[in-house]
C-alpha cells in the first residue's frame, strides 16, 4: 500500500474553485514554478470535495507556470491523480500551459500525465498503468517496492541494485558511477522499506543529449505515511528509559542541549531530530541500523564529485535537508553538521541547507538530480 490517504491527513479543506458550479471545479495553479505550494492547493481542494461529500465532480486543473520546480512535484501529481480516480472522487483533466524550453519539460514527457494534457484522464487506463509494479522504457525506470517481510529481509534489494545498474548501463555511463548511483538508490529504498509501513515508489528518468551536450539523471524515491525520518529519533529523545538504546545515542542529547538554545520557528526539535538521523553511530531502535541513511551523504558526495551540477534534497514532514557540496562530509567521529564548520555537536545547521516548509508532507521524498558532462565522464 502506498498509503496515499496520509497525504490528506494534516490538510485543511479549502475551496479553490474560481466559479461556483457544484460539480465543475476549475482550479488554477499559476506562478513561476509548479511547486509544493500548488500540490498542497490541490490536496486542500480534494479534501474540500471529500469533506463536503460532493459526488461526480469534474475537476479541471489548469497549470500555468513557466516550469516545474523538480521531478518530485510531477510524480506527486501522478500520485494525487491516482488517488482521485481510484477513490472515484471525480473526473480529472489537466491543462499544462508550461514552457517547453526547460529541462523539466523534457522529463515531463515521461510523466503519466503528459499524454492526457487537455484531455479527460481515462480512469481505468491510468489506474492500471499506475499500479504496474515495474515500468521500464528507454529513458524511464519506475518501480513500486512492496513493503513486505520478504522484500525487506530477502534478496529483493540485491535484485533491485542489479536491475537499476542494468538500466543505467544502457546509457554508457562510467561503471563506477553506475555502481555508486545504484547503491545510493537502493540504500534509500532499503531505509524506506525498513523504517515505514508503506510501499515505496522509485522513479528514475534519464535525458541523454551526449555527445554534444550533457546527460541528466533524476532519481525520486517517495514513501508516504506517518513515519518520518525523525520519528524514531523523537521517540528516543522523549523516552524516559534510554537504557534500551545504544550509549552512542548520548551524542544526540549532548547536541540537543546546545541546539535548543537556538530553536525558533525556522529550526526546531523536528529539524534537529531530522539531522540527527544522519549521524553515523546513532541507532534509533535497539540494535538496529541508522534510520536516516548512514553512508548516504558519503555516496551522494561521490556522485556529486563526478557531476557538473546537481540538485539533491530530502523532504520529510516539513523538514528539508539539501545535499550540497561542502556539507556532505562525515567527521572522523562520524558526525555531520550540515553547517560550514561541520559541527553537529555545537552548531545548528546552515539555514539554507536545513529549513522548514510551510506545510507538512506526511512521508519522505528523496530527489536526486545529477547533470553529467560528457567531457568529465569518459566511458570505460
Amino acid at each position: 500500500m502506498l498509503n496515499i490517504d496520509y497525504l490528506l491527513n494534516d490538510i485543511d479543506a479549502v475551496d479553490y474553485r474560481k466559479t461556483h458550479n457544484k460539480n465543475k471545479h476549475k482550479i488554477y495553479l499559476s506562478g513561476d514554478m509548479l511547486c509544493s505550494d500548488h500540490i498542497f492547493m490541490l490536496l486542500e481542494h480534494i479534501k474540500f470535495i471529500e469533506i463536503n461529500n460532493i459526488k461526480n465532480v469534474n475537476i479541471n486543473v489548469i497549470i500555468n507556470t513557466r516550469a516545474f520546480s523538480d521531478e518530485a512535484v510531477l510524480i506527486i501529481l501522478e500520485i494525487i491523480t491516482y488517488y482521485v480516480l481510484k477513490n472515484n472522487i471525480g473526473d480529472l483533466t489537466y491543462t499544462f500551459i508550461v514552457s517547453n524550453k526547460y529541462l523539466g519539460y523534457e522529463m515531463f514527457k515521461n510523466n503519466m500525465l503528459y499524454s492526457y494534457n487537455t484531455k479527460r484522464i481515462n480512469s481505468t487506463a491510468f489506474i492500471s498503468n499506475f499500479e504496474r509494479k515495474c515500468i521500464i522504457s528507454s529513458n524511464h525506470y519506475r518501480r513500486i517496492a512492496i513493503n513486505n517481510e520478504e522484500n525487506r529481509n530477502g534478496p529483493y534489494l540485491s535484485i533491485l541494485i542489479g536491475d537499476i545498474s542494468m538500466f543505467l548501463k544502457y546509457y554508457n555511463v562510467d561503471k563506477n558511477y553506475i555502481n555508486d548511483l545504484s547503491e545510493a538508490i537502493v540504500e534509500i529504498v532499503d531505509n524506506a522499506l525498513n523504517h515505514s509501513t508503506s510501499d515505496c515508489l522509485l522513479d528514475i528518468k534519464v535525458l541523454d543529449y551526449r555527445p554534444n551536450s550533457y546527460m541528466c539523471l533524476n532519481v525520486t524515491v517517495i514513501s508516504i505515511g506517518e513515519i518520518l525520518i525523525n520519528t524514531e529519533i523523537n521517540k528516543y529523545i522523549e523516552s524516559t528509559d534510554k537504557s534500551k538504546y545504544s550509549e552512542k545515542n548520548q551524542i544526540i542529547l549532548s547536541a540537543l542541549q546546545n541546539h535548543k538554545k537556538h530553536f525558533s520557528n525556522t529550526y526546531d526539535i523536528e529539524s534537529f531530530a531530522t539531522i540527527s538521523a544522519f549521524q553515523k553511530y546513532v541507532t534509533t531502535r535497539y540494535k538496529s541500523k541508522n534510520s536516516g541513511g548512514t553512508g548516504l551523504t558519503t555516496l551522494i558526495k561521490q556522485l556529486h564529485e563526478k557531476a557538473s551540477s546537481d540538485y539533491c534534497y530530502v523532504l520529510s514532514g516539513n523538514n528539508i535537508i539539501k545535499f550540497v557540496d561542502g556539507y556532505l562530509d562525515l567527521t572522523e567521529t562520524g558526525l555531520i553538521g550540515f553547517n560550514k564548520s561541520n559541527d553537529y555537536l555545537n552548531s545548528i545547521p546552515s539555514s539554507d541547507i536545513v529549513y522548514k516548509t510551510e506545510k507538512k508532507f506526511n512521508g519522505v521524498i528523496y530527489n536526486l538530480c545529477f547533470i553529467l558532462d560528457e567531457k568529465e565522464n569518459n566511458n570505460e
Partner: protein
Amino acid sequence: MNKIELKFDKSLSGLAGNSYGVSEYNSQLKDKFDWNGMNVIIFPNHIEKIGISFIQGFFSAILEKINKNNIEKYIKIESSSEELTTKIIENIKF
C-alpha cells in the same frame, strides 16, 4: 586458514539490504567463522557490487566481538575485483 566460500543465486550481480546481510551472515558465515584465526571470505565472481548496508548487516555480529581496526587480523576478503575487495574492507571499517 579458514576458507568460507559464499554462495548466492547466480542471477544476482549485486548484494544490498541490511536485513538480507544479517540473514546471510546467519546462514552462511555464523557457524563457520573461526574467532581465533584468519578467515578468507570469498564472494562469488558474479557479484560485482555490494551496498554498504549489506556489508554492515553481514559483518555486524562480527564487529560486536572484533574491533574494526583489528578486522584484517581475522578477515581476508576475495571478490570479483580488487576495487570491490577494497570497498568491502572500507565499508566494514566505516
